[in-house]
């Protein structure tokens, strides 16, 4: 690990996220199970009555531990460089992503026999129509409409397909175009509940939805704009090392704080910028990757969850809180082992929820955690090392791939100027689909550097 930002972390927190989380865990007497944390929060908050929800996992947690992903690897992290607006269609962006993957692996089209697609702007086509458009004849095809959770979920689906022999090589691609008016069109027709019960209320889009979550989180847990600003500023510093990032100017905390308000307490630099772009990766057997000489990462564990905690009055935790014990148990790892964290970051508050729900600190302690750590690629807690969506741009469904693709780069030693030295274990998490008042899909994957 590189030296940390010396001024920021507390003593003992300076050796990267793995060490930092270990120190935090020691201070707290170990990372608690999701159930413990939730109970404690419920008991301590003034809103206890209206926030209390059933114990996570009480009804739905699987009694069986999932099988591992032995012999399955992820390789060929790919980004089709983003642009703010594009006159192309989603087909173009997805087609470029597939071509890029084939090129990286030195494949002819026929070598890819599985395809997994995510896109918001592909309509009226689905993955099926896209296959004819691209002239592909896969024997395995999936279309995952899960927004920011698409990357992790695609990985899970593809890994099982390869493991079971339903496909040899799965190309996972996500991409969207961004016409000048696409964002408004997508918003007004995003979902049945959004059409009936969200869009008519000011049509603020995700800015408004996250403003409400942020307002609640700040008042409940004492987070300040400076806390969110610290994350945004660090991500921007990371983005300046990433040639794919659309945001090219440095950002200071003063600039962050002085930005114009969008939906109180959300200000300009809390919001992702919609753009066009695509991301992708390949899932195949380890033997195949070795034969091709492709650097790869192993899949140690994954989780997904949908519509978690439906009785919470407002979202202050995501599905990760239900499943993180299963995640770490499947991998035989702990939060303290994680060297790089890539979360879904359309707004900074959701980063805080992921720090908590993925076990890097207790519920409600993310503000303090943020004050204690530093988040640049050379910081105490290397985080969103590409710059995240907040500084790279949000290319629709590709935003749900960004963290995972960057993590594969980190763990294959191909992250260029953003490389975190010695990164071995990484965690990428996804979050998607504000169908009504909260994000419904959550996912996470623990990945490990391969040997190749």
């Amino acid at each position: 690990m590189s030296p940390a930002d010396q001024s920021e972390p507390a003593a003992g927190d300076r050796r990267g996220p793995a060490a930092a989380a270990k120190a935090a865990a020691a201070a707290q007497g170990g990372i608690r199970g999701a159930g413990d944390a939730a109970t404690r929060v419920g008991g301590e908050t003034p809103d206890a009555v209206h926030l209390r929800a059933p114990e996570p996992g009480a009804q739905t947690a699987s009694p069986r531990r999932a099988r591992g992903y032995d012999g399955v690897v992820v390789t060929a992290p790919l980004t089709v460089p983003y642009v703010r607006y594009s006159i192309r269609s989603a087909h173009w962006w997805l087609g470029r992503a597939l071509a890029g993957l084939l090129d990286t692996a030195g494949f002819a089209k026929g070598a890819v026999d599985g395809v997994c697609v995510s896109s918001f702007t592909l309509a009226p086509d689905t993955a099926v129509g896209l296959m004819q458009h691209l002239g592909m004849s896969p024997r395995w095809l999936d279309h995952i409409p899960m927004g920011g959770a698409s990357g992790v979920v695609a990985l899970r689906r593809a890994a099982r397909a390869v493991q079971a022999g339903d496909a040899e090589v799965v190309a996972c691609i996500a991409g969207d175009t961004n016409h000048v008016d696409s964002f408004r069109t997508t918003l007004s027709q995003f979902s049945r509940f959004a059409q009936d019960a969200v869009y008519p209320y000011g049509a603020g889009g995700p800015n408004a939805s996250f403003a409400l979550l942020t307002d609640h989180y700040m008042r409940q847990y004492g987070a300040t704009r400076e806390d969110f600003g610290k994350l945004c500023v660090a991500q921007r510093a990371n983005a300046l090392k990433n040639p794919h990032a659309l945001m090219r100017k440095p950002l200071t905390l003063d600039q962050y704080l002085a930005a114009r308000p969008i939906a109180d307490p959300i200000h300009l630099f809390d919001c992702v910028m919609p753009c066009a772009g695509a991301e992708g990766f390949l899932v195949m057997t380890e033997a195949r990757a070795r034969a091709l000489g492709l650097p790869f990462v192993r899949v140690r564990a994954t989780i997904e969850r949908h519509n978690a905690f439906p009785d919470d009055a407002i979202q202050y935790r995501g599905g990760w809180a239900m499943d993180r014990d299963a995640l770490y148990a499947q991998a035989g790892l702990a939060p303290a082992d994680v060297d790089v964290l890539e979360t879904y970051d359309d707004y900074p508050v959701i980063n805080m929820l992921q720090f908590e729900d993925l076990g890097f600190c207790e519920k409600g302690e993310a503000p303090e955690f943020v004050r204690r750590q530093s988040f640049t690629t050379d910081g105490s807690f290397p985080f969103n090392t590409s710059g995240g969506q907040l500084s790279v741009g949000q290319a629709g469904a590709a935003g749900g791939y960004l963290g995972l693709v960057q993590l594969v780069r980190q763990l294959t030693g191909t992250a260029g100027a953003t490389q975190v030295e010695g990164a071995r274990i990484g965690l990428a998490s996804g979050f998607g689909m504000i169908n009504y008042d909260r994000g419904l899909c959550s996912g996470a994957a623990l990945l490990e550097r391969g040997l190749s």
Partner: protein
Amino acid sequence: MTEPLARPKKKNPVARTRRATLPPAARSRTALGLVRAAAEGRFELQVCADCGAVQYPPREVCGQCLSARLAWQPVADGGTLVATTVLRHSNDLYFRERLPWRIGTVKMDAGPSVLAHVHEDCAADGRVRLALALDRSGNAVLHALPERSTPNMQDSPQMRELGCDPKYRRVLVSDGKSALGLAVAQAMLAAGASLVFVGDPTPWQTSAAFDRLVASDARVQRIELDVTDTDSVDRAAAEIGGKVDIVVNTAGHLRDGGILGATDVILARNAYDVNVLGLMRLAQAFGPAMCFRAADGTNSAVAWVNALSVYALAPLPARGAWSASQAAALSAAQTLRAEMQHAGVRVVNVFSGPIDEEWEQLTPPPKLAPAAVAKAIVAALVDGREDVHVGDIAEDIRERLRDNAKALERELAR
């Protein structure tokens, strides 16, 4: 606390009049259950008949037990505001023109968390009561209001958008000489209207009450207006049509008599001429200008009120010709509602029981005081309702109609 509304300045005659925009109007058919409740000022959500869970947003099946037996029912309207935001950016034209705009998440006592427009006087984390209001697109929206009324709360920009408050607006009462017209004019003055034009259909006939009304307040202006005379209506529109924000059509023609008892249709024709064609003449003369002025600031054109009888919904055979004209007037009013919707001008239909006036002399009580109907009209405008049943008889007929329309037919025939 809400700032009291400032009296609008005189309009700059060379400034462009802003065209009306509407909030997003697309809804699922199920969600339109909210409109049915909001139109009559009720607060209803879907309730599962099997497990009792209150549903929101509107669903096809119960989110708890998957039952398909979801019924719209009154539910407790209280809740706690758990989060708020003030929007300073919107993706929609209507809201862009009205920023900043406050919304929030309310945890209802009845169960669900709902997204709502939030009145500026609601305290963060405080108690609120939810109302179902009709927005300018004619769709129902949830509006979080302070649990107890606050000073000037009706003057907040959200209340002005969701209601049709007569305060600082200019009202035309088409027949100011009728008992109802006199009462409506007085009620509008009391509600803070800045001008009340009172139509005089019979300049050749003196009315002491009418003369007293005209003399009583500088805000009252008499205007000759006979809804059976196209020229008269056009002259009035040419004179005042550009400054009428609310029309209350009180012109009516009521006579006893069925169909078989007469040997001609003169009675019916006279009733139609006032009640149906009169409404159409008035609408053709005043409606287009109102639609054009539907976003014209504090005193924008907002509402068209039809004073109908509850017998528009089910005929009273003893007054069969008149009842038919009432039903025809209701049908015309519904078309008018569809036509004015594109501008966001609300059409309010008021269904009254018998009003205590000259032509109801022989009708036994209960009869409505004209002032009671006028009060109901003002309340409907302020609260933003569009279908109003006034008085015990109107409520009774509505209930009997909903319960068994065939039974009501037989009952009214007796």
